[in-house]
């Protein structure tokens, strides 16, 4: 039946219709995000307030404020330009030019005059070079550790594992980075403290951030997977499998792990697109020229247009992640219907 080309075509059609429907659902959410950022950045504080803040509160003249606003294109009305004619009433406004334009990925320019879209395109690579290995290695490490604890559940080994997890997740993420840099780079001189290089030469810069990234969430993630596995292994079908005389390892891998895929996918697939955004802390400590350090620099320089762009990009990627999650359900679980 599965070899039937008619059937395969029907599945494909259903899948595409499903995808389109999911994407249509996503649009109102993006509009909501867009309106929220617009309100946050232009209504809570008017462009005049921002100009006054950036130019210094004390010595600021109305002319300087006007100039600052004009340079950034903030000298227009917020929502409705009654001075303009026709469609210009709507398009010649801050909302249209600064906020709505983000839907076509037009992010405008940062305070130092560079195109934000181009910066994002350039910086995604380095971010991904750290985030993707961290994600993949992390997934393998956490799942294996959790399986190990599940295998030895309710023994001293399991208790020690959980205790270790609680201890590790109680340590601040900053400690792993500062401590790791100190021990590995400063005491042992194994890898450079910070920096980045493309290609094979970049390997030595990537190792430490990846290792620290993996260790940093070993505690919370392994514990989370362990809970999922334990919940599965308490179910009836697992008891049946054991009663059949299957070895514990076999039960764990071919039954528990397989059936735990749904909860695992829920938590995992959604973060994949967000890997492009990089990590704020890791990138700023290790001097990686990715999107994370771009965001931190923008926050410190109070470059609002960059922060606004990153907020929109982040939620766009998150929504892509949600759609991917739904699609992945249909792949691993035939019970999830496409209607």
């Amino acid at each position: 039946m599965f070899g039937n080309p008619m059937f395969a075509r029907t599945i494909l059609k259903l899948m595409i219709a499903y995808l389109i429907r999911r994407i249509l659902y996503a649009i109102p959410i993006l509009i909501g995000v867009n309106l929220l950022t617009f309100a946050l950045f232009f209504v809570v504080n008017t462009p005049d307030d921002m100009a006054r803040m950036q130019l210094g509160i004390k010595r600021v003249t109305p002319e300087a404020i006007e100039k600052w606003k004009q340079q950034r294109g903030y000298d227009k009305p917020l929502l409705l330009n009654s001075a303009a004619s026709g469609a210009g009433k709507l398009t010649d406004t801050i909302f249209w030019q600064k906020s709505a334009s983000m839907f076509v990925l037009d992010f405008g320019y940062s305070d130092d005059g560079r195109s934000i879209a181009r910066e994002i395109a350039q910086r995604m690579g380095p971010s991904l070079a750290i985030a993707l290995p961290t994600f993949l290695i992390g997934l393998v490490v956490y799942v294996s550790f959790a399986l190990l604890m599940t295998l030895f559940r309710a023994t001293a080994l399991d208790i020690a594992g959980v205790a270790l997890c609680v201890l590790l997740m109680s340590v601040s993420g900053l400690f792993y980075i500062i401590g790791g840099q100190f021990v590995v780079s400063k005491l042992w001189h194994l890898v450079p403290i910070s920096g980045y290089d493309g290609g094979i030469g970049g390997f030595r810069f990537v190792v430490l951030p990846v290792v620290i990234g993996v260790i940093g969430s070993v505690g919370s993630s392994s514990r989370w997977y362990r809970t999922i596995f334990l919940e599965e292994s308490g179910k009836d079908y697992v008891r049946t499998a054991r009663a059949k005389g299957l070895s514990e390892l076999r039960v764990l891998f071919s039954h528990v792990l397989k059936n735990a895929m749904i909860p695992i996918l829920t938590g995992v697939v959604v973060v994949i697109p967000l890997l492009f955004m990089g990590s704020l802390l890791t990138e700023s400590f290790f001097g990686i020229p990715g999107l994370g350090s771009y965001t931190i620099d923008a926050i410190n320089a109070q470059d609002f247009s960059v922060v606004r762009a990153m907020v929109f990009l982040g939620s766009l990627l998150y929504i892509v992640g949600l759609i991917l999650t739904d699609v992945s359900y249909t792949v691993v679980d035939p019970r999830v219907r496409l209607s």
Partner: protein
Amino acid sequence: MSFMPVILWSDALVFLLLAAGISGAWYVRRREHLLLPWRRVAQSATAMVSLAVLSLFFAVGLLDTLHYRVALPEKNGSASVYSPEVLSVFDKLVTPLRTQTEKTYSAPLAVTLHAKESISDAQGRVLRDYPRLRYGGAHLADVSQRDGDVLWRGFKGAMGGLVVGVLIAGITSLLRMQNLDGNNPPQSPLVRGNARTPPLTRGGWEGLAHLKKYIDSNYALIIAFIIIAALIGATASLASVYHVLGTDKVGQDVLYLSLKSIRTGLIIGTVTTLVTLPLALLLGIAAGYLRGWVDDVIQYVYTVLSSIPSVLLIAAAVLMMQVTIDTHPEWFDTAASRADLRLVFLCLILGMTSWTGLCRLLRGETLKLREQEYILAAQAFGVSTLGILARHIVPNVMHIILIALVMDFSALVLAEAVLSYVGVGVDPSMISFGTMINAARLEMGREPMVWWALAAAFGFMLALVLAANLFADAVRDAFDPRLNRSEGTA
């Protein structure tokens, strides 16, 4: 010396939380079915030890919340003027720690500065040596006496603490035993479930046997309590003449900074719940119970909010708050009130970004509950919607709320440090773990290395968060009805 009590915004919120907590405890105390899960928490030795550590932190935080301003010396009969510096009762208690500042870095328990300087001796010759500290070990005639003095003082303090600890533990054990009236037995791990501890029969060997039983069933807590008391004793005894954790770049005592950071962390961890709780509870059960367009709107709102990565949303909101605060300097009469309002806003922002998860949980649970027979019965009897929500839904989702709140606490304390590092946390002038780490992060690169400020910040944070995590786990285990208790899950 006259003073004026000051209630900052965050203080008021802490008092509000405290009142809510006390009335909640009062309510639970008189209802056996609500008390039962707490009994289970009390049976866990880990939970009780972490609770002891947590209460210590909370005590420091509370003392640090009672603020006041001292009156300045009056000038010929004019209206009294108060110092712009806002102090707390805790500041008053540890005045030496606060005021005895050195010139710059000094190591823990050091008697000299951390780096050599040119000093002129009695003969007027200039030599490069480590200068003595102004306060740390100033009572010593010679540097070489330090080790003996530190040991002796530490020992004396620890012994003092030990004695006090044993006394308090003994008295509370006796008192708690007296209170056992069979109605209200402490269920130790030894007597779990069945055998109730009989009431204390007065005097004689039997009484002693009961005391022994009580101590046996609570030995972890008692030992932890005595160790903590000894530690506090040793620290207090040493802190009077040394900088126990050294001093930072501008010579401030690191122990003082660490203790002051506790309040900031606790406020972030607790006041935030004042925002998340009402939002999540109201919207969650409204969406789940009323369904229809209400559900659609609420789901839309929380999907939008949760689709923005939380660090970015917090960063954006904090940046905007900074603009508002900076353009309205006239709102604040002291620097402390400014920093404080920023802290309250930070809690508000953290709350606005973190209620969505709990809201989703509550909606799901309410969806399940509204199909239950007792709800249908209430509907059939014509009980109003509000009545059903208040009488049937809210009590039945309370355990989810409680678990979520205790689990969030430690995450929020950790988040404060990260956010302050990123530059969107508390005001730079406010003492917190984040600002301490931020100020000290480049010190590891100095020669010779300065490690104590970082170590102190991370150590205190670890103690607080670990205790909170362990306690939260015990609470979750005790309240989660889904948990299969026979499986022995940790």
